[in-house]
């Protein structure tokens, strides 16, 4: 995955902001996989009956909901910006006609 990401970056398919985001993401995934045993212990110490993997799954789901929420907000903001533009064009055009 990291190799693919670096390839995409070199091919200018990803912006630097996105690149950093996904880089950190995959590194965290890698760490999670490697330290799975420790996560298991951590979760058990907290008193949960689930395994480390389950914990990671829940975290992933919460993260996903959060990201979707942010995307939706972003979309709404973009819609409003489009309206601003369309309005400006419309009003400018009408002034030209007078």
């Amino acid at each position, binding site marked *: 995955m990291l190799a693919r990401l670096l390839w995409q970056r070199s091919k200018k398919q990803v912006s630097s902001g996105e690149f950093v985001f996904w880089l950190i993401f995959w590194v965290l995934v890698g760490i999670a996989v490697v330290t799975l045993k420790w996560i298991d212990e951590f979760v058990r110490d907290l008193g949960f009956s689930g395994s480390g993997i389950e914990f990671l799954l829940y975290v992933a789901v919460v993260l996903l909901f959060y990201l979707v929420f942010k995307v939706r907000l972003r979309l709404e903001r973009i819609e409003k910006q*489009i309206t601003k533009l369309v309005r400006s064009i419309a009003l400018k055009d009408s002034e030209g006609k007078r």
Partner: protein
Amino acid sequence: MRIFIVIPAYNEAGKIGGVVTAVRKQGHKDVVVVDDGSGDDTAGVATEAGAVVISHLVNRGQGAALKTGTEYAIRRGADIIVHFDADGQFLAEEIRDMVKPVEKGEARVTLGSRFLGKKSDLPFLKRFIIMPLARLINRLLSGIKLTDPQNGFRVMTAEVARKIDWRSDRMAHCSEILFLLYHKGFRPKEIPVTVIYPDFGQRFGGGIRILKDLFLARLID
């Protein structure tokens, strides 16, 4: 007092000509039709009928179109701004009834109401289920008591229009405008109006969408 009639329109080439003509026949010469990215010749027909037409390149929604038209009216020196529907459901003769209290200074905003005495032929579903529900939701969300909160027939002074900055593009603008009016302290006066129902109205799905829009609007702001 300079009165501007703002009519947002989307694909109403069949009806807009008649509406604009009727409005102008009542003596209101400043008619602004906002063509909200229509696919048909709404713009052309409206211009023919004597209206000033402002066109949105793409469809943005009735709330957005109304705002554009209102902006335009303010810029052109309007004293009083009237919101009027493009589909022929309102009567041009009643514009005078709506404007008179504002002209006389009795109110700065008047809102049309279907339920204040004048008989409007509402379809059954709308009259007994959708409208009471809409009224209840409006009450709960905003604490505003009106007999017809979803009515698009409005008159306001330019001063009020300048202070009411609604952002909803789509159908939630009705509720947002009301909310802003009350929030800024402008108490509207309700005037009985007639609404003609040929065979359609706003469907129930619209109500759910309105709720969602309002909720999101609160979040973003």
